């Protein structure tokens, strides 16, 4: 499991997760994810394209960071999850609490809208 920083500017943080967000995967990235995405207080685009598996531990990591950002006035947009990962996220009710977008320009618009 890898967490890559794609871009960080004054407006937002853009990171990409890749691999399996399972027990070992979450252990490998959760501290960095919270530090890089959560602690800056800026909105974030999380590229999910390369995430092949995700269970509730991974969802907990995303929810926790999204809550931290919400408290600081920011938001998380999940970009381009694979169909079965998207199905799991929707089953867990994520669409109601954070945006999930497969078009990058729209993801960026969502981040920039207040």
């Amino acid at each position, binding site marked *: 499991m890898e967490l890559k920083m794609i871009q960080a500017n004054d407006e937002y943080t853009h990171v990409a997760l890749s691999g*399996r967000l*399972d*027990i*070992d995967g979450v252990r490998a990235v959760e501290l960095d994810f919270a530090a890089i995405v959560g602690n800056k207080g800026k909105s974030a685009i999380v590229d999910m394209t390369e995430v092949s*598996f995700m*269970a*509730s*531990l991974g*969802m*907990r990591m995303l*929810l*926790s960071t*999204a*809550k931290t950002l*919400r*408290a600081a006035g920011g938001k998380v947009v999940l970009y381009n999850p694979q169909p*079965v990962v998207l199905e*799991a996220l929707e*089953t*867990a*009710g994520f669409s*109601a*609490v*954070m945006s999930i977008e497969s078009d990058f320009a729209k993801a960026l618009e969502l981040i920039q809208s207040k």
Partner: protein
Amino acid sequence: MSSEKWIFTAECSLDSVAQGAAELQRYAGEIDLSSRKMFQLDLIYEELLTNVVKYSYPDPAGHTITVTLEKQGEDCIFEVIHDGMDFNPWNVESPDLDLPLEERSEGGLGIHLVKQFSKSLDYSRENGMSIVKVVF
């Protein structure tokens, strides 16, 4: 192609559960599961085993959990057998998914996901052993 039942015994620890996941994926590759079934299997395995490790024993040291997987036609039958608490996970209420982000619980999603990704669920207690069964 293998058609026998896969049986794995995990120590009651998250490390051992993670190790078992890798072996399960190897076996699932041999029995030719679709990518969606592979995802379901991974999810059901991780959620149920994590649940047993975290909540079924006051002291998990020295206990083991047996996991079996059998393919019958299009269905997969997955069982978790342990000697921990007599607790039916299917009685756990699903979290309220309509709450706003600020009020959403970060936990409790695992069993909800398993329920939604399965065809049928069963729980029994026999001779001091809990048997948690999922068909998907």
